[in-house]
């Protein structure tokens, strides 16, 4: 017996969840980008990347949790479609890689006040991974199962 997902009985649920998803990623990826740009020497130059990371980690985590839970609910509305959607699968690969990278190598890089010499590389990798997540998310809506991008 199938149980109907209550999300699908309301036309508003999906778009409202998407709004939470947007706020969540702006907060998490935005705060991570601030630290990354600091590692690259752009933006907040009067603070060290380590200071910025200490100031923003809680907001990053809050944004990630908001993004993750709204994302799981969005996924639950039509799991089969997402499973067959290749940008979604690429997005998940980027997302898992980005989260692991963020809480291992990235965290270690910004743990000391003078960032190690590979700080800039770490910042670039972090930015590329998170951009991959965003691009994957957008392309989900442009791919139809069995067809290429834009239905061609």
């Amino acid at each position: 017996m199938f149980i109907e997902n209550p999300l699908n009985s309301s036309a508003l649920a999906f778009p409202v969840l998407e709004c939470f998803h947007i706020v969540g990623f702006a907060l998490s990826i935005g705060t991570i980008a601030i630290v990354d740009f600091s590692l690259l020497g752009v933006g907040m130059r009067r603070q060290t990347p380590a200071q910025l990371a200490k100031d923003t980690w809680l907001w990053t985590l809050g944004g990630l949790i908001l993004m993750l839970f709204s994302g799981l609910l969005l996924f639950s509305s039509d799991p089969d479609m997402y499973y067959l959607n290749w940008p979604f699968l690429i997005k998940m690969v980027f997302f898992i890689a980005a989260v692991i990278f963020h809480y291992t190598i990235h965290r270690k890089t910004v743990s000391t006040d003078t960032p190690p010499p590979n700080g800039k590389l770490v910042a670039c990798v972090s930015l590329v991974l998170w951009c991959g997540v965003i691009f994957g998310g957008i392309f989900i809506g442009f791919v139809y199962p069995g067809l290429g991008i834009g239905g061609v």
Partner: protein
Amino acid sequence: MLLSFVQWLQFTGFFTALRGSAYAYPIVMSLHMVGIALFGGMVMLTDLRLLGWSMRKHSIADVVNQFRVPKRWGLLLTVTCGFLMFGSKAEEYYYNAFFRTKLILLTLVLVQELVFYRSVYADPAALDRAPAIPVNAKLAAALSLLLWTSIACCGRGIGYIEPPLDKIHAQMLPHSGYEGEIALCFSSRPTP
């Protein structure tokens, strides 16, 4: 006049190509989102600092002044990509209620900026000298958070409305009595 402008805009060669391309349109949309993450992240952190909820170890002046220029770059990326998306479906956007609301909210953001410019944004160091964060600054931050979040949500809403352009066009035809003849012209066109 505005209507004929948006119609002209979307049928320029550039926007016709953008509308028809399978990759360029979603790439522009993705870059719009990257801009939102960069700009939105900085806006939220600045506003949260003004509210006294984040980055309290650094002065308000430090946060506001250092984010000023990067925020402009983030906004420039977001607005440029937003304009490209608007241009490729300009007539639809013209009738889209969420797009209209979004434009009104963007105007309100500008008003907010002008109203609080002198008391908050022009001299953030003065806010640091005050014994507590002035109510004015907190109000400005709360309004900014509310407005920008609403703008992002309206943006998402645009994609959920598809104004019925064919019906709108049919209603706009002048009722001159020639409709029948025009239809006849098309139906009796010789096949090549």
